């Protein structure tokens, strides 16, 4: 079509121009939605997607993960390579897994996993392809197979389909595992939004994982596992009835294989047995019976059924579909990577939002050993302030930070650290809405509390609601906010007890010495006023000391 030719088309001409759009094309144009909005973020996102996939694969296959990340310079670009000891990928699937957006094993399941949308690693490949024009390079070997498969894969964006360039078999010293290499335009940076920070936080939440990093300058860092067993594998569940919306219910009814309504309710939902199903049907009343044929249920009845489900008491979703880190492992992870004086961890019981079970875990690590924190009773405000002024500014990645800085908030979703968009996240919102002053911390209005503390929060769910596909912040569903707050408050109370106990201990110590310090002055004053002799003064002080000791014992 020639440029600039603008005449008014008819409805028929307009119809002829309509076309379907491939999802790859869509996200290629909107790549900032997937976390590739800056060169430095693109590197972290690429590493994250590859490592998350590797961890999911290892755990699902029952292998203790051991993952190596290498980042090296290739001219103006960076090459990111991630290699795991996972089960490997069946050759015929490699193309689609790395070369097609929205392709994966987890989207249709209700089951907790790191990846969920089948988008991340393909998006990284697509970004590499866009910025350097090079396909992804994959090597994968399945246990027991003689050789590994090597492929170069790119995405045919107009059709959202893999394009396999070269394919061959080769010898590989790994018995099984996968290596992904992608060249991207990117900038390697340090600090709180770095690959290193992502890996360190991953190590905290996953103490059963060993991670190794080799950065572009050849510096190597290793996070060694401290737990030798895998966490239990989360299982898959059916949806919980309280999270189903009317339209969804109508869809399920019309797709149902079950021949009776009772059977439908029992099969389609989690936590619905015969008794519960009957209770729902009875409540829905007129026009519906246990034997109604699901596909024939009309809109009006479905609406009543939906209301009946909402009104019926149904037990919460099964817990074994979720695999929280667990209090023991969480404590282990915190102790391993953070040096603090006080630790507390908490795994809340599972809860439900929109029919999806989820579970909140909280960990606090407070204070630095050998660096007293308490602000109790020594000196005036002024003196304290000055001392603060003169302290050295801390490193941004210093964990925990200084006592006049906000706590370091580490956010996790399904064991994956969230590095970006902290202000937009439900976890941050919960942490700032709590009144930490009542737990003995200072807190600026509307902000995080100030304390030398790491605050770790993990949200595990069969479907974590992120605010965007780049998976950087958890959306603020009221049910999730509530659980987050309860968890944080519970840990806050434990912290407050610790701080109070600590303060009380110091106080008792101070009181003992105080008495000994001030009694002689009572003696001096009495001597001066009553003009008594030194001997009588001494006697009086001794008598007073005795009185006080007796009082304190009672």
């Amino acid at each position, binding site marked *: 079509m020639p440029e600039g030719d603008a005449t008014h088309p008819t409805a028929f001409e307009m119809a002829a121009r309509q076309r379907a759009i491939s999802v790859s094309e869509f996200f290629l144009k909107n790549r900032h939605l997937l976390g590739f909005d800056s060169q430095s973020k693109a590197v972290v996102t690429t590493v994250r997607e590859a490592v998350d996939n590797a961890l999911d694969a290892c755990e699902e296959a029952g292998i203790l993960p051991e993952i190596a990340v290498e980042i090296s310079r290739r001219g103006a670009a960076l090459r990111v390579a991630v290699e795991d000891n996972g089960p490997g990928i069946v050759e015929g699937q490699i193309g689609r897994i790395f070369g097609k957006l929205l392709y994966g094993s987890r989207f249709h399941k209700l089951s907790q996993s790191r990846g969920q949308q089948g988008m991340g690693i393909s998006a990284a490949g697509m970004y590499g392809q866009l910025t350097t024009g090079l396909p992804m390079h994959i090597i994968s070997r399945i246990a027991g197979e003689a050789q590994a498969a090597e492929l170069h894969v790119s995405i045919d964006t107009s059709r959202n389909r893999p394009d396999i360039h070269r394919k061959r078999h080769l010898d590989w010293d790994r018995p099984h595992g996968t290596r992904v290499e992608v060249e991207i335009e990117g900038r390697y940076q340090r600090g709180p939004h770095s690959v290193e920070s992502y890996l360190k936080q991953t190590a905290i939440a996953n103490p059963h994982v060993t991670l190794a990093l080799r950065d572009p300058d050849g510096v190597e860092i290793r996070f060694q596992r401290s737990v030798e067993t895998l966490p239990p594998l989360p299982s898959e569940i059916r949806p919980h009835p309280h999270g189903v919306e009317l339209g969804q219910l109508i869809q399920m009814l019309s797709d149902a294989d079950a021949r009776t309504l009772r059977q439908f309710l029992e099969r389609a939902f989690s936590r619905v047995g015969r008794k519960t199903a009957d209770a729902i049907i009875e409540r829905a009343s007129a026009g519906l019976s246990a034997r109604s044929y699901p596909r024939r249920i009309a809109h009006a009845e479905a609406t009543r059924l939906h209301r009946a489900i909402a009104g019926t008491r149904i037990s919460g979703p099964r817990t074994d579909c979720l695999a929280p880190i667990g209090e023991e492992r969480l404590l282990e992870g915190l102790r391993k990577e953070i040096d603090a004086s006080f630790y507390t961890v908490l795994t809340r019981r599972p809860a439900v939002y929109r029919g999806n079970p989820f579970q909140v875990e909280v960990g606090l690590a407070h204070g630095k050993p050998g660096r007293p924190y308490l602000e109790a009773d020594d000196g005036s405000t002024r003196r304290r302030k000055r001392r603060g002024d003169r302290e050295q500014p801390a490193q941004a990645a210093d964990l925990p930070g200084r006592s006049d800085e906000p706590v370091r908030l580490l956010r996790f979703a399904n064991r994956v650290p969230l590095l970006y968009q902290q202000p937009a996240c439900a976890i941050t919102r919960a942490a700032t809405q709590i009144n930490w002053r009542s737990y003995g911390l200072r807190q600026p209005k509307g902000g995080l509390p100030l304390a030398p503390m790491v605050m770790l929060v993990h949200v595990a769910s069969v479907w974590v609601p992120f605010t965007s596909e780049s998976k950087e912040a958890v959306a603020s569903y009221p049910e999730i906010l509530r659980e987050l707050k309860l968890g944080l408050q519970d840990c806050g109370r434990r912290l407050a007890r610790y701080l109070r106990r600590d303060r009380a201990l110091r106080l008792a110590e101070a009181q003992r010495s105080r008495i000994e*310090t*001030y009694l002689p002055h009572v003696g001096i004053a*009495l001597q001066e*006023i009553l003009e008594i002799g030194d001997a009588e003064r001494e006697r009086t002080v001794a*008598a007073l000391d005795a009185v006080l000791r007796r*009082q304190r014992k009672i």
Partner: protein
Amino acid sequence: MTVQPANHGATDIDRRTLAVIESVARQVAAAIAAGELPEIALPRRGLANVRYDADKGYFELGEARKTRRLTAGTARIFAQTLRLMAVSRQLVADGDFATKREAYYVAKNWGVCRFGDQAESDAVMDDIEALASMYGLSREQLRFHPESHGGAVAGPLTVIDRGAVPGETIEIDCAALGSGAYSIPHSVEHLQFRTKARFILAIETGGMFQRLNNHRFWREANGILVELGGVPTRATRRFIRRLSDDCRLPVYCFTDCDPYGFANIYRTLKVGSGNAAHISPLFCVPKARFLGVTPKDIVDYDLGDATHPLSRVDEKRARDALANDPFFRRHRRWVAAIESLLKMGVRAEQQALAKWGLNYVIEKYLPRKLADRRSFLP
């Protein structure tokens, strides 16, 4: 009116002061001897323990006591209280005195018992003062003098003070200081007075005092001029109180027409303030009356264009007075006056009268006012 010889030795009042201090110490010693925890009973100084005594005409401390018992938690302040009482005893015995600041520094030699800052020593001193007030003794009699002296005085008054050598007295003629004035000392307990004046005029600003003094207004009017200089200091308040008591003189108060002049200056002079109620019996001047400038004067003297709008703080202060101040609430004329001020929405200074000429205040305003004392506010 007679003149008593000043005396550097122990006067009656000094003996009473010593007795109070010693009795506290003796009770402490006795408790210790009996194997009990010693304690000192101090009046509570909080507002909850303050009430307005309509008959006496001032704020007074109530009956509530706090008992400072010696425990680990109170050891420090207990010792400080006793030691500061010991200092007071020594000052009385020596015929010397110390300012609050000096007392704070004297304690620097107390080692761990020293005060961290002056707020700390002031609080302990306030406790002791409240204790002494139960026996009708002021802080000045404990020989802790305020940092600031009083305002200026001029007019037909002779102040009789102690001289440098014991027994000697000095007479100061406040009508013979020219354009200067007599400066009220920090403590006035030992002064005696002789006067033929008919009243005391307490004046808010130094500028107005200067005008009246330079024009020898006190001669025509036969009154003693006292400069308040804003809210009067302890020394000024005690000076006016003692002068008006000893010489049975009425006190007329002349301030700006604004809530600060009414509620902070005049009310403090007359009935004291809630947060220092323990000193009211000695420091307030119940027989004071308010001469002006009154809200009515703004109308009567056509001062409208020499006024300023009330600030938020002014308005708040006025409403507070109407809502919470037992003194103003008790006097219907004051309520009416403050309400009319709020309605006008303006305030007028003493100097506003200068609109009609600098000496209008001398030639017209004050003579007219003094001729009609019923126009004074209570």
